[in-house]
């Protein structure tokens, strides 16, 4: 879909960025020492830090991705919410305080605090870098996809804007300003989403006006008379569509819902029930919508409506409470718009967005989306895949380097604990809001069928343009905040862990900050490049990757270090390495990767299911135990 540029959105956005940069320069003047740069002088108040946790965590994947997934596929987006939040329990109950006791600035410090081992330094730093990069990619891709529809600029400019802004922030002030960016972002996000939810509940549920996109037989025949039928070629032959082309070039694509297997070769009389769908194809580099070039007058129309409310209501329900909202939705019929790509005989690919009415009750239980549909089947492997993903989400949160780093910005252990709780509260409230947001978007009639990530902002737009501008700007600062946290973690890994501690490059405090800034710039550039390269990838998929890797590489080492006395340096190094390589390898060899990345037949893959966590996390633990038992305990380094 094309979007009109909104000057209000641009204005508000620039305003936000200006404030953030301003804060950054101001606070940057204070952060000259490395302690200040990396750990924000250890003086951040726990409440601020807690909301900053939330800001860090509620990245594009949470806000845009989960809302979008709920809007398009129902309950399954909520599964991510549950998994993500549950991970915080691991963080709080297992990790929070022990970590604060241990290290100075980074994840590698914490692991190494008892050993002073080059092996640990190296593997921990590499792990931090790898996970940060995998988490960075979806954020940059998200930034690009936000900018394109919002401001009318191409994808790479969105990536560039985020990259440059964040690098500027990080290079000038490091941790302090990123903490404030996260804090501002976290508060704003929760607040405005709350406002949106109130508006959704107030509007209630409505039935869409009589859908002109459905036809009966006589209307279809009249229509067909004025156009001519396109002969199905290639994959079209097996699909239930009829395409009619009209003299002006417009193509109307009709899908029959009964006796569909006949339609490719059959006659018009075989159709019993059908709807007009929307198509997008690319010809000679130009995008065609329904056969004609995409323009303001010829574009995909917004979707996402209810076709039938439960008994007792005819047109609209009026204001509803949250429980009533869900219950009413449960009993309604909603028109969803999945898509399929069809190749014709010449190799041209057309993506058809077709209507699929579904019962609310179908959408409000796990397994409604294509990603998780396996849960409802009897396929054990698919169920294991689901369990594995839930495990990865659960374990991954506590092991993410950019989250861990935030533990060091508070004064003491009690503060670390309290800030985690504030974080959990903010995030928990937010996820409950996103459930209603997603469902509201599903029925808002404002969804863009081609773009899952825009569901939340478009929902806002259906209420008010101003709200749309604000929410879009917040979504953007969402990405700003998370990316700055990631670059911090990464630059810490390079400057502090690798250069200063491992290679023992001579540097005083100021030099360390200096190298940190260079590393941050380098990472910023790398992130921009990758964000552009991977621009067509599914954001949630990449985030799932990052979680799997973090959980497999980092968590076993962290947990065992904190709780098992016989852990040795070599054990830790080995566990991190094995966890990292096995999860990476598993993912790169999985069926999903074969299909989406290399475009090879997925059946060639030997991996039974896509999410490695179920296998690689235990593997990490096992490795650590075995290697530790075998190697001797080193005498602890003098601190």
């Amino acid at each position, binding site marked *: 879909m094309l979007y009109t540029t909104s000057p209000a959105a641009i204005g508000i956005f620039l305003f936000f960025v200006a404030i953030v940069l301003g804060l950054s320069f101001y606070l940057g003047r204070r952060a000259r020492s490395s302690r200040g740069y990396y750990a924000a002088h250890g003086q951040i108040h726990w409440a601020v830090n807690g909301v900053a946790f939330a800001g860090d965590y509620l990245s594009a994947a949470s806000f845009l991705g989960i809302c979008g997934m709920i809007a398009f596929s129902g309950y399954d987006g*909520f599964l991510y919410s549950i998994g993500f939040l549950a991970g*915080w*329990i691991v963080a709080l*109950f297992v990790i929070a305080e022990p970590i604060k006791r241990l290290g100075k600035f980074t994840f590698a410090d914490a692991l190494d605090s008892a050993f002073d081992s080059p092996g640990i330094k190296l593997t921990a730093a590499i792990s931090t870098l790898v996970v940060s990069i995998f988490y960075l990619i979806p954020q940059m891709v998200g930034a690009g996809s936000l900018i394109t529809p919002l401001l009318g600029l191409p994808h790479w400019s969105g990536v560039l804007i985020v990259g440059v802004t964040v690098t500027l922030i990080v290079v000038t002030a490091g941790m302090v300003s990123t903490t404030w960016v996260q804090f501002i972002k976290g508060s704003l996000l929760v607040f405005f989403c709350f406002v949106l939810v109130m508006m959704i509940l107030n509007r209630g549920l409505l039935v869409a006006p009589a859908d002109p996109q459905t036809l009966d037989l006589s209307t279809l025949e009249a229509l067909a008379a004025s156009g001519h039928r396109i002969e199905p070629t290639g994959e079209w032959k097996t699909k239930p569509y009829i395409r009619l082309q009209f003299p002006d070039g417009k193509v109307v694509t009709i899908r029959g819902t009964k006796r569909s297997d006949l339609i490719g070769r059959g006659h018009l009389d075989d159709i019993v029930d059908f709807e007009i769908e929307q198509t997008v194809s690319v010809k000679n580099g130009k995008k065609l919508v329904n056969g004609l070039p995409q323009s303001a007058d010829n574009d995909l129309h917004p979707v996402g409506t209810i076709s039938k409310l439960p008994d007792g209501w005819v047109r609209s329900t009026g204001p509803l409470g949250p429980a009533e909202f*869900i219950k009413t939705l*449960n009993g309604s019929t909603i028109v969803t718009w999945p898509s399929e790509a069809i190749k014709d005989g010449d190799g041209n690919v057309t993506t058809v967005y077709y209507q699929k009415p579904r019962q609310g009750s179908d959408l409000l239980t796990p397994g409604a989306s294509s990603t998780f549909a396996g849960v409802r089947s009897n396929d054990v492997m698919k169920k294991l895949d689901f369990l594995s993903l839930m495990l990865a989400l659960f374990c991954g949160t506590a092991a993410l380097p950019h989250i861990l780093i935030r533990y060091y910005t508070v004064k003491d252990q*009690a503060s670390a*604990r309290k800030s985690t*709780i504030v974080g959990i509260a903010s995030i*928990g409230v937010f996820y409950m809001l996103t459930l209603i947001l997603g469902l509201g978007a599903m029925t808002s009639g404002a969804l863009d069928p081609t773009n899952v990530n825009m569901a939340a902002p478009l929902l806002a737009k259906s209420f008010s343009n101003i709200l749309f501008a604000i929410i879009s700007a917040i979504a953007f600062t969402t990405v700003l905040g998370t990316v700055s946290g990631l670059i911090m973690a990464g630059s810490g890994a390079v400057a502090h862990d690798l250069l200063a501690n491992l290679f023992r490059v001579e540097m005083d405090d100021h030099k360390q900050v200096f190298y940190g800034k260079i590393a941050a710039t380098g990472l910023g550039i790398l992130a921009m490049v990758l964000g552009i390269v991977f621009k067509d990838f599914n954001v949630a998929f990449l985030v799932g990757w990052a979680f799997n890797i973090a959980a497999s590489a980092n968590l076993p080492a962290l947990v065992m270090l904190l709780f098992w006395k016989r852990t040795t340096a070599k054990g830790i190094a080995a566990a991190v390495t094995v966890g990292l390589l096995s999860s990476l390898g598993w993912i790169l060899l999985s069926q999903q990767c074969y299909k989406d990345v290399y475009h090879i037949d997925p059946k060639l893959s030997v991996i039974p299911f896509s999410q490695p966590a179920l296998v690689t996390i235990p593997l990490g633990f096992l490795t650590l135990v075995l290697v530790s038992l075998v190697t001797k305990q080193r005498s602890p380094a003098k601190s």
Partner: protein
Amino acid sequence: MILFVIYVALYLGFMILAAFDPELMAKPTPLAGVNLAIVYGVGLIVAALVLAFVYTLVSKSAESTP
């Protein structure tokens, strides 16, 4: 630590139910007629908050007794 185990049990329960008995998840509960899947999911979030809060109280008292 016990709190953690409690939560893990709840979470596991959810995972297994969802994976192996999807029909049960669809049944409406007495809670305003909302189905089990949503109630359980929201419940997990609320449980996290509650447990976290309990944890603070427990730790505070543990810290104040020398």
